[in-house]
Protein backbone atom coordinates (compact mmCIF):
# COMPACT_ATOMS: atom_id res chain seq x y z
CA UNK A 1 0.00 0.00 0.00
CA UNK A 2 1.89 2.83 1.54
CA UNK A 3 4.43 4.43 -0.63
CA UNK A 4 3.36 2.87 -3.87
CA UNK A 5 -0.24 3.95 -3.76
CA UNK A 6 0.83 7.34 -2.62
CA UNK A 7 2.96 7.69 -5.68
CA UNK A 8 -0.24 7.41 -7.59
CA UNK A 9 -1.26 10.90 -8.66
CA UNK A 10 1.59 11.68 -11.01
CA UNK A 11 1.73 8.37 -12.80
CA UNK A 12 -1.95 7.97 -12.71
CA UNK A 13 -2.67 11.13 -14.55
CA UNK A 14 -0.60 9.93 -17.42
CA UNK A 15 -1.84 6.39 -17.17
CA UNK A 16 -5.42 7.35 -17.65
CA UNK A 17 -4.50 9.89 -20.29
CA UNK A 18 -2.90 7.05 -22.20
CA UNK A 19 -6.05 4.99 -21.84
CA UNK A 20 -8.05 7.89 -23.22
CA UNK A 21 -5.63 8.35 -26.10
CA UNK A 22 -5.71 4.65 -26.97
CA UNK A 23 -9.49 4.69 -26.98
CA UNK A 24 -9.56 7.76 -29.23
CA UNK A 25 -7.08 6.27 -31.67
CA UNK A 26 -9.00 3.01 -31.90
CA UNK A 27 -12.25 4.86 -32.44
CA UNK A 28 -10.86 7.12 -35.12
CA UNK A 29 -9.62 4.08 -36.97
CA UNK A 30 -12.86 2.13 -36.83
CA UNK A 31 -15.23 5.03 -37.37
CA UNK A 32 -14.54 7.75 -39.89
CA UNK A 33 -16.99 10.02 -38.11
CA UNK A 34 -15.21 10.00 -34.79
CA UNK A 35 -12.52 12.50 -35.52
CA UNK A 36 -14.72 15.09 -37.19
CA UNK A 37 -14.85 18.48 -35.54
CA UNK A 38 -18.57 18.16 -35.30
CA UNK A 39 -18.36 14.90 -33.41
CA UNK A 40 -15.65 16.22 -31.14
CA UNK A 41 -17.91 19.09 -30.26
CA UNK A 42 -20.67 16.57 -29.65
CA UNK A 43 -18.51 14.59 -27.28
CA UNK A 44 -17.45 17.67 -25.38
CA UNK A 45 -20.97 18.96 -25.13
CA UNK A 46 -22.20 15.59 -23.98
CA UNK A 47 -19.43 15.44 -21.42
CA UNK A 48 -19.99 18.92 -20.09
CA UNK A 49 -22.78 18.05 -17.67
CA UNK A 50 -21.06 15.05 -16.14
CA UNK A 51 -17.80 16.96 -16.24
CA UNK A 52 -19.17 19.88 -14.26
CA UNK A 53 -20.76 17.56 -11.72
CA UNK A 54 -17.51 15.66 -11.43
CA UNK A 55 -15.50 18.80 -10.80
CA UNK A 56 -17.77 19.63 -7.86
CA UNK A 57 -17.56 16.03 -6.74
CA UNK A 58 -13.77 16.28 -6.77
CA UNK A 59 -13.87 18.94 -4.08
CA UNK A 60 -16.10 16.77 -1.95
CA UNK A 61 -14.13 13.58 -2.43
CA UNK A 62 -10.85 15.35 -1.71
CA UNK A 63 -12.19 15.99 1.80
CA UNK A 64 -13.06 12.27 2.17
CA UNK A 65 -16.71 13.00 1.49
CA UNK A 66 -19.11 11.97 -1.22
CA UNK A 67 -22.13 13.68 -2.74
CA UNK A 68 -24.81 11.29 -3.89
CA UNK A 69 -27.38 14.03 -4.28
CA UNK A 70 -26.05 15.70 -7.41
CA UNK A 71 -28.42 13.93 -9.77
CA UNK A 72 -31.42 15.06 -7.78
CA UNK A 73 -30.03 18.56 -7.47
CA UNK A 74 -29.69 18.67 -11.24
CA UNK A 75 -33.41 18.04 -11.49
CA UNK A 76 -34.39 20.36 -8.66
CA UNK A 77 -32.37 23.29 -9.92
CA UNK A 78 -33.62 22.56 -13.40
CA UNK A 79 -37.28 22.92 -12.47
CA UNK A 80 -36.81 25.75 -10.00
CA UNK A 81 -34.71 27.93 -12.25
CA UNK A 82 -36.74 27.04 -15.30
CA UNK A 83 -39.92 28.09 -13.58
CA UNK A 84 -38.49 31.60 -13.67
CA UNK A 85 -37.65 31.27 -17.31
CA UNK A 86 -40.77 30.01 -18.99
CA UNK A 87 -42.02 32.27 -21.69
CA UNK A 88 -44.98 33.07 -19.51
CA UNK A 89 -43.01 33.72 -16.34
CA UNK A 90 -40.45 35.85 -18.07
CA UNK A 91 -43.33 38.05 -18.98
CA UNK A 92 -41.20 41.06 -19.56
CA UNK A 93 -40.31 39.43 -22.84
CA UNK A 94 -37.32 37.55 -21.48
CA UNK A 95 -33.98 39.15 -22.05
CA UNK A 96 -32.41 37.35 -24.98
CA UNK A 97 -29.05 36.59 -23.37
CA UNK A 98 -28.07 35.38 -19.95
CA UNK A 99 -31.30 35.49 -18.06
CA UNK A 100 -29.96 36.68 -14.74
CA UNK A 101 -32.83 35.94 -12.44
CA UNK A 102 -33.33 32.28 -13.29
CA UNK A 103 -29.61 31.66 -13.26
CA UNK A 104 -29.19 33.37 -9.91
CA UNK A 105 -32.12 31.43 -8.52
CA UNK A 106 -30.65 28.22 -9.88
CA UNK A 107 -27.23 28.78 -8.41
CA UNK A 108 -28.68 29.74 -5.06
CA UNK A 109 -30.95 26.72 -5.02
CA UNK A 110 -28.07 24.39 -5.78
CA UNK A 111 -25.90 26.01 -3.19
CA UNK A 112 -28.67 25.92 -0.61
CA UNK A 113 -29.28 22.22 -1.10
CA UNK A 114 -25.56 21.54 -0.94
CA UNK A 115 -25.35 23.61 2.21
CA UNK A 116 -27.94 21.49 3.94
CA UNK A 117 -25.89 18.38 3.22
CA UNK A 118 -22.82 20.30 4.26
CA UNK A 119 -24.33 21.21 7.61
CA UNK A 120 -25.35 17.63 8.26
CA UNK A 121 -21.85 16.42 7.48
CA UNK A 122 -19.74 19.19 8.95
CA UNK A 123 -21.81 20.21 11.92
CA UNK A 124 -23.63 17.03 12.87
CA UNK A 125 -21.03 14.48 11.80
CA UNK A 126 -23.51 12.55 9.73
CA UNK A 127 -21.51 10.32 7.36
CA UNK A 128 -21.48 11.97 3.95
CA UNK A 129 -22.92 8.89 2.34
CA UNK A 130 -26.00 9.01 4.54
CA UNK A 131 -26.45 12.77 4.48
CA UNK A 132 -26.32 12.99 0.72
CA UNK A 133 -28.30 9.81 0.18
CA UNK A 134 -31.02 11.41 2.25
CA UNK A 135 -30.71 14.48 0.09
CA UNK A 136 -30.85 12.38 -3.06
CA UNK A 137 -34.28 11.22 -1.98
CA UNK A 138 -35.49 14.48 -0.48
CA UNK A 139 -34.40 16.71 -3.35
CA UNK A 140 -36.08 14.41 -5.83
CA UNK A 141 -39.26 14.56 -3.82
CA UNK A 142 -39.08 18.34 -3.62
CA UNK A 143 -38.53 18.50 -7.36
CA UNK A 144 -41.62 16.46 -8.04
CA UNK A 145 -43.65 18.50 -5.58
CA UNK A 146 -42.44 21.79 -7.00
CA UNK A 147 -43.11 20.77 -10.56
CA UNK A 148 -46.23 18.79 -9.76
CA UNK A 149 -44.55 15.85 -11.42
CA UNK A 150 -44.72 17.48 -14.83
CA UNK A 151 -41.97 18.93 -16.99
CA UNK A 152 -41.65 22.68 -17.14
CA UNK A 153 -41.67 23.44 -20.85
CA UNK A 154 -41.41 26.46 -23.08
CA UNK A 155 -38.28 28.07 -21.77
CA UNK A 156 -37.20 31.47 -23.00
CA UNK A 157 -34.59 31.74 -25.70
CA UNK A 158 -32.33 33.53 -23.27
CA UNK A 159 -32.42 30.61 -20.91
CA UNK A 160 -32.07 28.04 -23.64
CA UNK A 161 -28.95 29.86 -24.81
CA UNK A 162 -27.15 28.37 -21.81
CA UNK A 163 -27.59 24.96 -23.34
CA UNK A 164 -27.79 25.57 -27.04
CA UNK A 165 -26.01 28.84 -27.72
CA UNK A 166 -22.44 29.23 -28.76
CA UNK A 167 -19.73 31.82 -28.59
CA UNK A 168 -17.50 31.92 -31.62
CA UNK A 169 -18.75 28.50 -32.67
CA UNK A 170 -18.05 26.89 -29.33
CA UNK A 171 -21.19 25.75 -27.58
CA UNK A 172 -21.91 27.47 -24.29
CA UNK A 173 -21.97 24.22 -22.23
CA UNK A 174 -18.42 23.50 -23.36
CA UNK A 175 -17.34 27.01 -22.47
CA UNK A 176 -18.94 26.69 -19.06
CA UNK A 177 -17.28 23.34 -18.55
CA UNK A 178 -13.92 24.83 -19.46
CA UNK A 179 -14.49 27.77 -17.16
CA UNK A 180 -15.54 25.59 -14.25
CA UNK A 181 -12.50 23.42 -14.78
CA UNK A 182 -10.11 26.36 -14.99
CA UNK A 183 -11.46 28.03 -11.88
CA UNK A 184 -11.53 24.78 -9.93
CA UNK A 185 -8.02 23.97 -11.01
CA UNK A 186 -6.81 27.37 -9.91
CA UNK A 187 -8.65 27.17 -6.62
CA UNK A 188 -7.42 23.70 -5.79
CA UNK A 189 -3.81 24.16 -6.75
CA UNK A 190 -3.19 27.80 -6.04
CA UNK A 191 -5.38 29.13 -3.29
CA UNK A 192 -5.39 28.66 0.43
CA UNK A 193 -8.90 27.31 0.37
CA UNK A 194 -7.90 24.72 -2.19
CA UNK A 195 -4.87 23.58 -0.30
CA UNK A 196 -6.93 23.43 2.86
CA UNK A 197 -9.35 21.13 1.08
CA UNK A 198 -6.45 18.76 0.49
CA UNK A 199 -5.28 19.11 4.07
CA UNK A 200 -8.71 18.36 5.52
CA UNK A 201 -8.95 15.26 3.36
CA UNK A 202 -5.35 14.19 3.84
CA UNK A 203 -5.30 14.52 7.60
CA UNK A 204 -8.22 16.17 9.36
CA UNK A 205 -6.46 16.04 12.69
CA UNK A 206 -3.40 17.85 11.37
CA UNK A 207 -5.68 20.37 9.71
CA UNK A 208 -7.44 21.04 12.97
CA UNK A 209 -4.27 21.31 15.00
CA UNK A 210 -2.89 23.72 12.43
CA UNK A 211 -5.86 25.94 13.13
CA UNK A 212 -7.80 25.36 9.94
CA UNK A 213 -11.56 25.84 10.10
CA UNK A 214 -12.17 22.19 9.29
CA UNK A 215 -15.91 22.35 9.61
CA UNK A 216 -16.23 25.39 7.45
CA UNK A 217 -14.15 23.77 4.74
CA UNK A 218 -16.18 20.57 4.88
CA UNK A 219 -19.32 22.61 4.65
CA UNK A 220 -18.04 24.67 1.76
CA UNK A 221 -17.25 21.73 -0.51
CA UNK A 222 -20.85 20.56 -0.38
CA UNK A 223 -22.07 24.04 -1.17
CA UNK A 224 -19.69 24.11 -4.13
CA UNK A 225 -20.84 20.72 -5.31
CA UNK A 226 -24.44 21.86 -4.99
CA UNK A 227 -23.81 25.05 -6.91
CA UNK A 228 -22.05 23.18 -9.70
CA UNK A 229 -24.84 20.62 -9.79
CA UNK A 230 -27.04 23.68 -10.23
CA UNK A 231 -25.00 24.82 -13.22
CA UNK A 232 -25.27 21.33 -14.69
CA UNK A 233 -28.99 21.29 -14.01
CA UNK A 234 -29.53 24.53 -15.86
CA UNK A 235 -27.46 23.38 -18.81
CA UNK A 236 -29.49 20.19 -18.90
CA UNK A 237 -32.83 21.98 -18.80
CA UNK A 238 -31.66 24.48 -21.37
CA UNK A 239 -30.39 21.74 -23.65
CA UNK A 240 -33.48 19.58 -23.49
CA UNK A 241 -35.68 22.62 -23.74
CA UNK A 242 -37.75 21.80 -20.73
CA UNK A 243 -36.95 21.06 -17.13
CA UNK A 244 -37.75 17.47 -16.28
CA UNK A 245 -38.40 16.44 -12.71
CA UNK A 246 -37.08 12.99 -13.48
CA UNK A 247 -33.85 14.30 -14.98
CA UNK A 248 -30.44 13.36 -13.65
CA UNK A 249 -31.28 9.98 -12.18
CA UNK A 250 -28.09 8.11 -11.27
CA UNK A 251 -25.86 10.94 -12.51
CA UNK A 252 -23.97 10.73 -9.24
CA UNK A 253 -22.49 7.40 -10.27
CA UNK A 254 -21.00 8.75 -13.47
CA UNK A 255 -19.69 11.81 -11.68
CA UNK A 256 -18.02 9.77 -8.97
CA UNK A 257 -16.70 7.39 -11.60
CA UNK A 258 -15.07 10.27 -13.47
CA UNK A 259 -13.41 11.44 -10.28
CA UNK A 260 -12.12 8.02 -9.31
CA UNK A 261 -11.03 7.05 -12.81
CA UNK A 262 -9.19 10.36 -12.85
CA UNK A 263 -7.08 9.16 -9.98
CA UNK A 264 -8.62 10.93 -7.02
CA UNK A 265 -8.68 8.73 -3.96
CA UNK A 266 -11.95 8.12 -2.18
CA UNK A 267 -9.85 8.16 0.99
CA UNK A 268 -9.34 11.88 0.48
CA UNK A 269 -6.41 14.21 0.16
CA UNK A 270 -5.07 12.97 -3.15
CA UNK A 271 -6.23 13.91 -6.60
CA UNK A 272 -6.51 16.50 -9.29
CA UNK A 273 -9.34 18.11 -11.11
CA UNK A 274 -7.44 17.63 -14.37
CA UNK A 275 -7.62 13.88 -13.78
CA UNK A 276 -11.33 14.22 -13.20
CA UNK A 277 -11.77 15.95 -16.53
CA UNK A 278 -9.88 13.16 -18.27
CA UNK A 279 -12.05 10.64 -16.46
CA UNK A 280 -15.19 12.42 -17.61
CA UNK A 281 -13.89 12.56 -21.18
CA UNK A 282 -13.10 8.86 -21.10
CA UNK A 283 -16.69 8.10 -20.13
CA UNK A 284 -18.02 10.55 -22.71
CA UNK A 285 -15.87 9.21 -25.54
CA UNK A 286 -16.86 5.68 -24.66
CA UNK A 287 -20.57 6.47 -24.77
CA UNK A 288 -20.22 8.37 -27.99
CA UNK A 289 -17.94 5.83 -29.65
CA UNK A 290 -20.11 2.83 -28.91
CA UNK A 291 -23.13 4.65 -30.28
CA UNK A 292 -21.17 5.70 -33.37
CA UNK A 293 -20.20 2.11 -34.00
CA UNK A 294 -23.79 1.08 -33.55
CA UNK A 295 -22.88 -1.53 -30.98
CA UNK A 296 -25.98 -3.24 -29.71
CA UNK A 297 -27.19 -1.81 -26.46
CA UNK A 298 -26.80 -4.90 -24.31
CA UNK A 299 -23.29 -5.48 -25.52
CA UNK A 300 -22.56 -1.79 -24.98
CA UNK A 301 -23.23 -2.21 -21.31
CA UNK A 302 -20.85 -5.12 -21.06
CA UNK A 303 -18.17 -3.37 -23.07
CA UNK A 304 -18.49 -0.15 -21.10
CA UNK A 305 -18.10 -1.97 -17.83
CA UNK A 306 -15.07 -3.82 -19.09
CA UNK A 307 -13.51 -0.73 -20.63
CA UNK A 308 -13.76 1.33 -17.47
CA UNK A 309 -12.07 -1.37 -15.46
CA UNK A 310 -9.48 -1.97 -18.16
CA UNK A 311 -8.61 1.71 -18.38
CA UNK A 312 -8.04 1.94 -14.68
CA UNK A 313 -6.18 -1.34 -14.65
CA UNK A 314 -3.83 -0.14 -17.35
CA UNK A 315 -3.28 2.89 -15.23
CA UNK A 316 -2.74 1.07 -11.96
CA UNK A 317 -0.54 -1.61 -13.45
CA UNK A 318 1.99 1.07 -14.18
CA UNK A 319 2.54 1.45 -10.49
CA UNK A 320 4.58 -0.91 -8.43
CA UNK A 321 2.48 -3.29 -6.42
CA UNK A 322 1.73 -3.14 -2.70
Amino acid at each position, binding site marked *: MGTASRMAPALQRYGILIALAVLCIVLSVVSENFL*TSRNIINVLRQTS*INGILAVGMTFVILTRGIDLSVGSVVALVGVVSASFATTSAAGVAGAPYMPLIPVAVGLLTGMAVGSVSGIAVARFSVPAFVATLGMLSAARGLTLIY*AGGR*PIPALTDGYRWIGTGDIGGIPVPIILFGLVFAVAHFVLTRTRFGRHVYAVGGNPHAAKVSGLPVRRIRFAVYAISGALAGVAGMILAAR*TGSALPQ*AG*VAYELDAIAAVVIGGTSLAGGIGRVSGTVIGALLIGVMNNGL*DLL*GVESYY*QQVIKGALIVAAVMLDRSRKTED
Partner: protein
Amino acid sequence: QDAPLKIGMAAYGLNAEFMQLWSAAGAKHPAVQSGMVELTVFDGRYDALVQQDQFETMITQGFDAIVFAPMDVEAGATAVQLAVDAGIPVVGSNARVNSDQLTAYVGSNDVEAGYLEAKAVLDKMGCQGAVVIIEGPIGQSGEIQRGEGNEQALAECPDVQILERQTGNWSRAEAQALMENWLTSHGDAITGVIGQNDEMALGAIEAIKAAGMDVSDFAIAGVDGVTDALNAVKTGQMASILQDGEAQALGSIDVAIKAVRPDYEPMSGIWEQYPDMPWNDGASKEYNVPWTPVTLENVDALLAGRQ
Protein backbone atom coordinates in the same frame (compact mmCIF):
# COMPACT_ATOMS: atom_id res chain seq x y z
CA GLN B 1 -30.02 -0.13 -56.45
CA ASP B 2 -29.53 2.81 -54.12
CA ALA B 3 -27.33 2.64 -51.07
CA PRO B 4 -29.34 1.35 -48.11
CA LEU B 5 -31.26 3.89 -46.11
CA LYS B 6 -29.87 4.51 -42.68
CA ILE B 7 -32.65 4.60 -40.17
CA GLY B 8 -32.15 4.96 -36.45
CA MET B 9 -34.56 3.63 -33.89
CA ALA B 10 -34.24 5.66 -30.72
CA ALA B 11 -35.78 3.70 -27.87
CA TYR B 12 -36.15 5.40 -24.54
CA GLY B 13 -34.65 2.39 -22.81
CA LEU B 14 -34.20 -1.25 -23.62
CA ASN B 15 -33.99 -2.92 -20.27
CA ALA B 16 -37.64 -3.88 -20.03
CA GLU B 17 -39.60 -6.27 -22.18
CA PHE B 18 -41.95 -3.91 -23.94
CA MET B 19 -39.31 -1.71 -25.59
CA GLN B 20 -37.31 -4.82 -26.30
CA LEU B 21 -40.20 -6.23 -28.34
CA TRP B 22 -40.64 -2.87 -30.01
CA SER B 23 -37.01 -2.60 -31.08
CA ALA B 24 -36.70 -6.26 -32.02
CA ALA B 25 -39.67 -5.86 -34.35
CA GLY B 26 -37.69 -3.38 -36.40
CA ALA B 27 -35.28 -6.07 -37.50
CA LYS B 28 -38.18 -8.10 -38.83
CA HIS B 29 -39.37 -5.37 -41.15
CA PRO B 30 -39.25 -6.62 -44.76
CA ALA B 31 -37.34 -3.55 -45.87
CA VAL B 32 -34.69 -4.24 -43.28
CA GLN B 33 -34.50 -7.89 -44.17
CA SER B 34 -34.18 -7.10 -47.86
CA GLY B 35 -31.26 -4.81 -47.19
CA MET B 36 -33.06 -1.73 -48.40
CA VAL B 37 -32.83 -0.28 -44.90
CA GLU B 38 -29.96 -0.43 -42.50
CA LEU B 39 -31.39 -0.16 -39.04
CA THR B 40 -29.54 0.92 -35.90
CA VAL B 41 -31.16 0.74 -32.49
CA PHE B 42 -30.18 3.28 -29.85
CA ASP B 43 -30.79 2.71 -26.18
CA GLY B 44 -31.80 5.97 -24.55
CA ARG B 45 -31.07 4.54 -21.13
CA TYR B 46 -34.20 6.18 -19.73
CA ASP B 47 -32.66 9.63 -19.98
CA ALA B 48 -34.07 12.33 -22.25
CA LEU B 49 -30.69 13.94 -22.60
CA VAL B 50 -29.04 10.71 -23.66
CA GLN B 51 -31.63 10.45 -26.39
CA GLN B 52 -30.86 13.96 -27.50
CA ASP B 53 -27.15 13.11 -27.56
CA GLN B 54 -27.95 10.11 -29.71
CA PHE B 55 -29.87 12.33 -32.10
CA GLU B 56 -26.73 14.40 -32.42
CA THR B 57 -24.75 11.27 -33.12
CA MET B 58 -27.23 10.23 -35.82
CA ILE B 59 -27.08 13.67 -37.36
CA THR B 60 -23.28 13.51 -37.41
CA GLN B 61 -23.45 10.19 -39.15
CA GLY B 62 -25.95 11.38 -41.72
CA PHE B 63 -28.87 9.11 -40.92
CA ASP B 64 -31.77 9.36 -43.35
CA ALA B 65 -34.62 9.07 -40.89
CA ILE B 66 -35.28 8.49 -37.23
CA VAL B 67 -37.97 6.50 -35.46
CA PHE B 68 -38.35 7.96 -32.03
CA ALA B 69 -39.84 6.55 -28.84
CA PRO B 70 -39.21 9.46 -26.51
CA MET B 71 -38.53 9.31 -22.81
CA ASP B 72 -40.21 12.60 -22.20
CA VAL B 73 -43.06 14.46 -23.83
CA GLU B 74 -41.48 17.88 -23.64
CA ALA B 75 -37.78 17.19 -23.83
CA GLY B 76 -38.24 15.01 -26.86
CA ALA B 77 -39.35 18.06 -28.82
CA THR B 78 -35.86 19.52 -28.74
CA ALA B 79 -34.36 16.37 -30.14
CA VAL B 80 -36.95 16.34 -32.90
CA GLN B 81 -36.16 19.94 -33.71
CA LEU B 82 -32.45 19.17 -33.98
CA ALA B 83 -33.08 16.41 -36.48
CA VAL B 84 -35.60 18.35 -38.49
CA ASP B 85 -33.20 21.29 -38.64
CA ALA B 86 -30.65 18.90 -40.08
CA GLY B 87 -33.19 17.77 -42.64
CA ILE B 88 -33.85 14.38 -41.12
CA PRO B 89 -37.47 13.32 -40.79
CA VAL B 90 -38.56 11.96 -37.44
CA VAL B 91 -41.43 9.57 -36.90
CA GLY B 92 -42.79 9.32 -33.39
CA SER B 93 -43.59 5.90 -32.11
CA ASN B 94 -45.11 4.42 -28.98
CA ALA B 95 -44.85 7.52 -26.80
CA ARG B 96 -45.94 11.04 -27.47
CA VAL B 97 -43.77 14.04 -27.92
CA ASN B 98 -45.00 17.57 -27.79
CA SER B 99 -43.80 18.64 -31.21
CA ASP B 100 -45.47 19.59 -34.47
CA GLN B 101 -42.34 18.74 -36.40
CA LEU B 102 -42.93 15.02 -36.46
CA THR B 103 -43.53 13.50 -39.83
CA ALA B 104 -46.15 11.38 -38.13
CA TYR B 105 -46.92 9.58 -34.93
CA VAL B 106 -47.49 5.85 -34.91
CA GLY B 107 -48.70 4.74 -31.54
CA SER B 108 -51.56 3.73 -29.44
CA ASN B 109 -53.76 6.00 -27.46
CA ASP B 110 -52.79 5.58 -23.82
CA VAL B 111 -55.90 7.35 -22.64
CA GLU B 112 -57.90 4.67 -24.32
CA ALA B 113 -55.81 1.91 -22.73
CA GLY B 114 -56.25 3.46 -19.32
CA TYR B 115 -59.95 3.58 -19.91
CA LEU B 116 -60.17 0.02 -21.17
CA GLU B 117 -58.20 -1.53 -18.35
CA ALA B 118 -60.05 0.40 -15.66
CA LYS B 119 -63.28 -0.55 -17.31
CA ALA B 120 -62.28 -4.21 -17.22
CA VAL B 121 -61.66 -3.94 -13.51
CA LEU B 122 -64.83 -2.03 -12.80
CA ASP B 123 -66.93 -4.36 -14.89
CA LYS B 124 -65.69 -7.34 -12.97
CA MET B 125 -66.45 -5.48 -9.74
CA GLY B 126 -69.89 -4.64 -10.95
CA CYS B 127 -69.24 -0.98 -10.35
CA GLN B 128 -69.10 -1.68 -6.64
CA GLY B 129 -66.35 -1.75 -4.08
CA ALA B 130 -62.97 -0.10 -3.76
CA VAL B 131 -59.90 0.05 -5.96
CA VAL B 132 -56.26 0.93 -5.69
CA ILE B 133 -54.31 2.40 -8.57
CA ILE B 134 -50.65 1.59 -9.11
CA GLU B 135 -49.26 4.33 -11.25
CA GLY B 136 -46.28 4.66 -13.55
CA PRO B 137 -43.42 7.02 -12.81
CA ILE B 138 -45.09 10.31 -12.14
CA GLY B 139 -44.87 12.74 -15.01
CA GLN B 140 -44.23 10.27 -17.78
CA SER B 141 -46.66 10.43 -20.66
CA GLY B 142 -47.77 6.86 -20.06
CA GLU B 143 -48.66 7.60 -16.47
CA ILE B 144 -50.40 10.86 -17.32
CA GLN B 145 -52.48 9.51 -20.14
CA ARG B 146 -53.35 6.13 -18.73
CA GLY B 147 -54.24 7.93 -15.53
CA GLU B 148 -56.57 10.14 -17.50
CA GLY B 149 -58.20 7.06 -18.99
CA ASN B 150 -58.47 5.50 -15.52
CA GLU B 151 -60.29 8.60 -14.34
CA GLN B 152 -62.73 8.50 -17.23
CA ALA B 153 -63.73 4.96 -16.42
CA LEU B 154 -63.91 5.62 -12.71
CA ALA B 155 -66.16 8.58 -13.33
CA GLU B 156 -68.67 6.14 -14.73
CA CYS B 157 -68.76 4.29 -11.43
CA PRO B 158 -69.13 6.99 -8.81
CA ASP B 159 -69.77 4.42 -6.09
CA VAL B 160 -66.36 2.91 -6.40
CA GLN B 161 -63.98 4.27 -3.86
CA ILE B 162 -60.33 4.93 -4.67
CA LEU B 163 -58.45 3.78 -1.61
CA GLU B 164 -54.90 4.48 -2.69
CA ARG B 165 -52.91 5.69 -5.64
CA GLN B 166 -49.18 5.52 -5.61
CA THR B 167 -46.36 5.02 -8.06
CA GLY B 168 -44.85 1.61 -8.59
CA ASN B 169 -42.41 2.98 -11.19
CA TRP B 170 -43.45 0.34 -13.73
CA SER B 171 -41.72 -2.18 -11.45
CA ARG B 172 -43.14 -5.50 -10.38
CA ALA B 173 -41.10 -5.69 -7.20
CA GLU B 174 -42.07 -2.19 -6.10
CA ALA B 175 -45.73 -2.77 -6.83
CA GLN B 176 -45.61 -6.01 -4.93
CA ALA B 177 -44.36 -4.33 -1.76
CA LEU B 178 -46.86 -1.54 -2.22
CA MET B 179 -49.74 -3.96 -2.51
CA GLU B 180 -48.58 -6.00 0.46
CA ASN B 181 -48.64 -2.87 2.56
CA TRP B 182 -52.02 -1.81 1.26
CA LEU B 183 -53.48 -5.21 1.99
CA THR B 184 -52.32 -4.66 5.53
CA SER B 185 -53.78 -1.21 5.90
CA HIS B 186 -57.05 -1.90 4.08
CA GLY B 187 -57.50 -5.62 4.60
CA ASP B 188 -60.09 -7.09 2.31
CA ALA B 189 -61.65 -3.73 1.56
CA ILE B 190 -59.69 -3.70 -1.67
CA THR B 191 -61.54 -5.45 -4.44
CA GLY B 192 -59.96 -4.00 -7.54
CA VAL B 193 -56.43 -3.23 -8.67
CA ILE B 194 -55.72 -0.98 -11.60
CA GLY B 195 -52.10 -1.36 -12.61
CA GLN B 196 -51.02 1.13 -15.19
CA ASN B 197 -48.88 -1.57 -16.74
CA ASP B 198 -48.80 -5.33 -16.59
CA GLU B 199 -45.68 -5.63 -14.51
CA MET B 200 -47.27 -3.74 -11.65
CA ALA B 201 -50.51 -5.66 -11.93
CA LEU B 202 -48.48 -8.87 -11.75
CA GLY B 203 -46.75 -7.57 -8.65
CA ALA B 204 -50.14 -6.99 -7.05
CA ILE B 205 -51.17 -10.54 -7.88
CA GLU B 206 -48.08 -11.91 -6.18
CA ALA B 207 -48.78 -9.76 -3.13
CA ILE B 208 -52.30 -11.08 -2.93
CA LYS B 209 -51.05 -14.63 -3.13
CA ALA B 210 -48.42 -13.98 -0.52
CA ALA B 211 -51.09 -12.64 1.81
CA GLY B 212 -52.86 -15.95 1.47
CA MET B 213 -55.82 -14.38 -0.28
CA ASP B 214 -57.61 -15.58 -3.34
CA VAL B 215 -56.69 -13.77 -6.53
CA SER B 216 -60.06 -14.54 -8.02
CA ASP B 217 -61.70 -12.33 -5.38
CA PHE B 218 -60.01 -9.35 -6.97
CA ALA B 219 -60.52 -7.57 -10.23
CA ILE B 220 -57.07 -6.81 -11.62
CA ALA B 221 -55.92 -5.35 -14.88
CA GLY B 222 -52.82 -4.06 -16.54
CA VAL B 223 -51.70 -2.71 -19.88
CA ASP B 224 -49.17 -3.89 -22.49
CA GLY B 225 -49.72 -7.62 -22.85
CA VAL B 226 -46.26 -8.73 -21.73
CA THR B 227 -45.73 -12.46 -21.75
CA ASP B 228 -46.26 -13.02 -18.04
CA ALA B 229 -49.51 -11.10 -18.26
CA LEU B 230 -50.72 -13.23 -21.14
CA ASN B 231 -50.13 -16.27 -18.99
CA ALA B 232 -51.95 -14.66 -16.10
CA VAL B 233 -54.90 -13.83 -18.33
CA LYS B 234 -54.95 -17.40 -19.47
CA THR B 235 -55.34 -18.58 -15.88
CA GLY B 236 -57.97 -15.98 -15.21
CA GLN B 237 -56.00 -13.90 -12.76
CA MET B 238 -56.13 -10.59 -14.53
CA ALA B 239 -57.16 -8.67 -17.58
CA SER B 240 -54.67 -7.06 -19.90
CA ILE B 241 -54.83 -4.76 -22.86
CA LEU B 242 -52.30 -5.64 -25.49
CA GLN B 243 -50.33 -2.79 -26.90
CA ASP B 244 -48.98 -3.87 -30.22
CA GLY B 245 -45.45 -2.55 -29.99
CA GLU B 246 -44.43 -4.55 -33.01
CA ALA B 247 -47.03 -2.87 -35.14
CA GLN B 248 -45.98 0.50 -33.82
CA ALA B 249 -42.39 -0.20 -34.77
CA LEU B 250 -43.18 -1.68 -38.19
CA GLY B 251 -45.63 1.09 -39.00
CA SER B 252 -43.24 3.84 -38.04
CA ILE B 253 -40.52 2.34 -40.20
CA ASP B 254 -42.91 2.31 -43.13
CA VAL B 255 -43.75 5.94 -42.55
CA ALA B 256 -40.09 6.83 -42.14
CA ILE B 257 -39.10 5.19 -45.41
CA LYS B 258 -41.95 6.92 -47.12
CA ALA B 259 -40.72 10.27 -45.87
CA VAL B 260 -37.38 9.70 -47.56
CA ARG B 261 -38.55 7.78 -50.64
CA PRO B 262 -41.80 9.36 -51.80
CA ASP B 263 -42.53 6.44 -54.15
CA TYR B 264 -42.36 3.85 -51.39
CA GLU B 265 -45.21 1.44 -50.78
CA PRO B 266 -45.57 -0.02 -47.28
CA MET B 267 -44.10 -3.47 -46.92
CA SER B 268 -45.11 -4.57 -43.46
CA GLY B 269 -48.22 -6.58 -42.91
CA ILE B 270 -49.76 -4.43 -40.25
CA TRP B 271 -51.83 -2.35 -42.62
CA GLU B 272 -53.77 -5.45 -43.51
CA GLN B 273 -53.86 -6.64 -39.94
CA TYR B 274 -55.42 -3.37 -38.76
CA PRO B 275 -57.89 -2.17 -41.33
CA ASP B 276 -58.99 0.48 -38.84
CA MET B 277 -55.67 2.15 -39.37
CA PRO B 278 -55.50 3.21 -43.00
CA TRP B 279 -52.11 3.78 -44.65
CA ASN B 280 -53.47 6.85 -46.37
CA ASP B 281 -50.40 6.95 -48.58
CA GLY B 282 -48.23 7.79 -45.62
CA ALA B 283 -49.77 11.21 -45.37
CA SER B 284 -51.54 10.95 -42.01
CA LYS B 285 -50.13 12.86 -39.10
CA GLU B 286 -51.28 10.20 -36.72
CA TYR B 287 -51.58 6.44 -36.98
CA ASN B 288 -53.46 4.92 -34.15
CA VAL B 289 -52.53 1.30 -33.60
CA PRO B 290 -55.57 -0.24 -31.96
CA TRP B 291 -55.46 -1.92 -28.56
CA THR B 292 -56.38 -5.54 -28.33
CA PRO B 293 -57.96 -6.69 -25.12
CA VAL B 294 -56.43 -10.04 -24.28
CA THR B 295 -59.10 -12.67 -23.98
CA LEU B 296 -59.21 -16.36 -23.41
CA GLU B 297 -59.87 -16.71 -27.13
CA ASN B 298 -56.87 -14.84 -28.47
CA VAL B 299 -54.38 -15.49 -25.71
CA ASP B 300 -52.99 -18.74 -27.04
CA ALA B 301 -52.33 -17.24 -30.42
CA LEU B 302 -50.63 -14.27 -28.82
CA LEU B 303 -48.50 -16.51 -26.66
CA ALA B 304 -47.49 -18.55 -29.64
CA GLY B 305 -46.25 -15.35 -31.30
CA ARG B 306 -43.89 -14.76 -28.41
CA GLN B 307 -41.84 -17.92 -28.83
